[in-house]
């Protein structure tokens, strides 16, 4: 299995700058700064079909192209290391494995949009990762890859680490822009897009940690090489899949984009925990839909998932077995979403706690048959919310009712949780 992002992975330590450079690290940056027009960098990412790994799958190159030539300075390049989606831990593993590819990616993207201010936004529970990044930023600067006039190119860039204090909505790119400015982190609906008016009304390009880490490799080896890393011709690159829940070996694995779910679970995560049978999984974190067993062989890439009516999300697979109560699991996630709602808009602020209460009633054995259509109606209603948090929150509920209505019915009929 070709390892790109994890090629310097060691079980017990972080790859050093020297090790990263020995494997070709910072050669892409050197080439870009000496001979690549900015448009070429953007075109390479576009040709490589680099899709945003933060969950939405938006083409990275296209995002950079929306920063106008004439846009004002200074411009911002933000690395989104908030990673608060339940079940997701790939960015943490990546930072703890080989942090310089993230830093190099930021500088290259920074150059392609002429952003001289880089900010890594990182969650509070990743304090160690934050310190690693601060230390390695200093090392990159000492080696001449950061700071004024990088490698004599005339392009300058500084990167700093911005710590968050724990709130899921800060991962949403516009809320994050508010958070970075020291403002209350509520989202801002476009237009204008952040690439036009972001931090302090200046152009701001935000990317997920994993997206940025792919960039140097694309520059160095070419778009075709990157596309060919995938499991089939309609996908591109590798993907960091995290697997947790009822499997033998939970962990984060770099596999071809489009690897089948069955292979991810059975081969790479060591199969189900002994004595457990697969019931379902959330394929991309808590804001994706429960996947029915009939899709156990599905190819895990953005397109294939979308065609099947699902979302790849962050590619973080949470595996549930036959003995785990899905009403209980959904209730747990709805507690999370209701608590994390930023409170800005009514459908989410009021709707999510209402859905949580209905689920709590069903789980406690006090549910009524009418609760099922009510929950369905609410799952649709919260799509009226201001940002994508609430529709994401509705995904487990809606899919619970679509694929596992029997289980919900059993709770209502028996006036108790059949699993307890």
């Amino acid at each position, binding site marked *: 299995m070709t390892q790109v992002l994890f090629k310097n992975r060691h079980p017990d330590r972080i790859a050093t700058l020297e090790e990263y450079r020995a494997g070709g690290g910072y050669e892409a940056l050197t080439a870009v700064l000496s001979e690549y027009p900015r448009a070429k960098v953007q075109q390479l990412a576009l040709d490589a079909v680099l899709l945003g790994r933060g969950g939405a799958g938006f083409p990275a190159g296209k995002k950079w192209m929306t920063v106008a030539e004439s846009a004002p300075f200074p411009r911002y390049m933000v690395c989104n290391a908030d990673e608060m989606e339940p079940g997701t831990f790939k960015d943490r593993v990546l930072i703890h494995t080989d942090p310089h590819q993230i830093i190099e990616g930021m500088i290259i993207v920074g150059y392609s949009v002429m952003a001289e201010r880089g900010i890594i936004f990182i969650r509070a529970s990743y304090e160690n990762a934050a310190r690693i990044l601060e230390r390695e930023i200093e090392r990159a600067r000492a080696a001449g890859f950061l700071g004024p006039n990088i490698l004599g190119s005339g392009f300058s860039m500084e990167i700093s680490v911005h710590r968050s204090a724990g709130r899921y909505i800060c991962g949403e790119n516009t809320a994050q822009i508010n958070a970075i400015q*020291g403002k209350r982190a509520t989202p801002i609906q476009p237009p204008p897009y952040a690439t036009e008016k972001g931090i302090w009304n200046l152009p701001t390009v935000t990317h997920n940690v994993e997206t940025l880490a792919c960039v140097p490799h694309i520059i160095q080896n070419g778009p075709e090489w990157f596309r060919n890393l995938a499991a089939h011709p309609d996908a591109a690159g590798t993907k960091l899949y995290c697997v947790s829940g009822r499997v033998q070996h939970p962990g984060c694995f770099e596999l071809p984009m489009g690897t089948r779910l069955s292979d991810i679970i059975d081969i790479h995560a060591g199969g189900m925990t002994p004595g457990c049978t697969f019931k379902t999984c959330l394929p991309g974190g808590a804001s994706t839909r429960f996947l029915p067993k009939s899709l156990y062989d599905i190819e895990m890439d953005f397109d294939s998932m979308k065609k099947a009516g699902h979302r790849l999300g962050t590619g973080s697979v949470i595996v549930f077995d036959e003995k785990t109560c899905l009403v209980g699991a959904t209730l747990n996630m709805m507690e999370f979403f209701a608590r994390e709602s930023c409170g800005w808009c009514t459908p989410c602020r009021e709707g999510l706690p209402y859905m949580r209460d209905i689920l709590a009633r069903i789980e406690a054995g006090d549910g009524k048959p009418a609760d099922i259509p009510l929950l369905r109606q609410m799952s649709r209603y919260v799509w009226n919310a201001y940002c994508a948090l609430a529709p994401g929150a509705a995904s487990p509920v809606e899919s619970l009712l679509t694929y596992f209505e029997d289980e919900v019915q059993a709770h209502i009929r028996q006036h108790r949780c059949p699993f307890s």
Partner: protein
Amino acid sequence: MIPDDFRQLLARRIAGVEHPREKIMDVVFMIQDKFGYLSDELLEDAAGLLKMTPLEVEEIATFYEFIYRRPVGGHVIHVCDGVVCWMSGHASILDHLRGRLGIDFGETTPDGRFTLLPTCCIGYCDRSPAMMIDRKVYGKLTPERIDEILEKLGLDTEGDSDDTGSL
């Protein structure tokens, strides 16, 4: 009131940035590391340094999980209640902690040593069930392991976090 030398330390942290309020998290974390929590008085002091109104600081302080606006114990224990930890025994971990400390969520032990709080998924689902103490992560928790951790914290206040900076 913030002692003068500490105020200078904070001021240095902010110095040179165009928009001081961008540094609010760093300032609050530095204050909490020193004083445990963000009291009304410290909040007002911080607001002055950040060129914000106390209300603006309050707006942000109340938004986040790891900003404490009330006194907390010497060690703040955040137990993950995310869905993976829920599946892998969060309830029994919590029962054990409650029993050992004699407190519930939101409470501090009478000797002021420990505060117990929940937290959402902390991104260590591959090592669930997990918890955070003083912003260090502890995974694969069992009652025995919790006892060891608590004992270490009680003895030398350092702890053996398994999140030592490597994988």
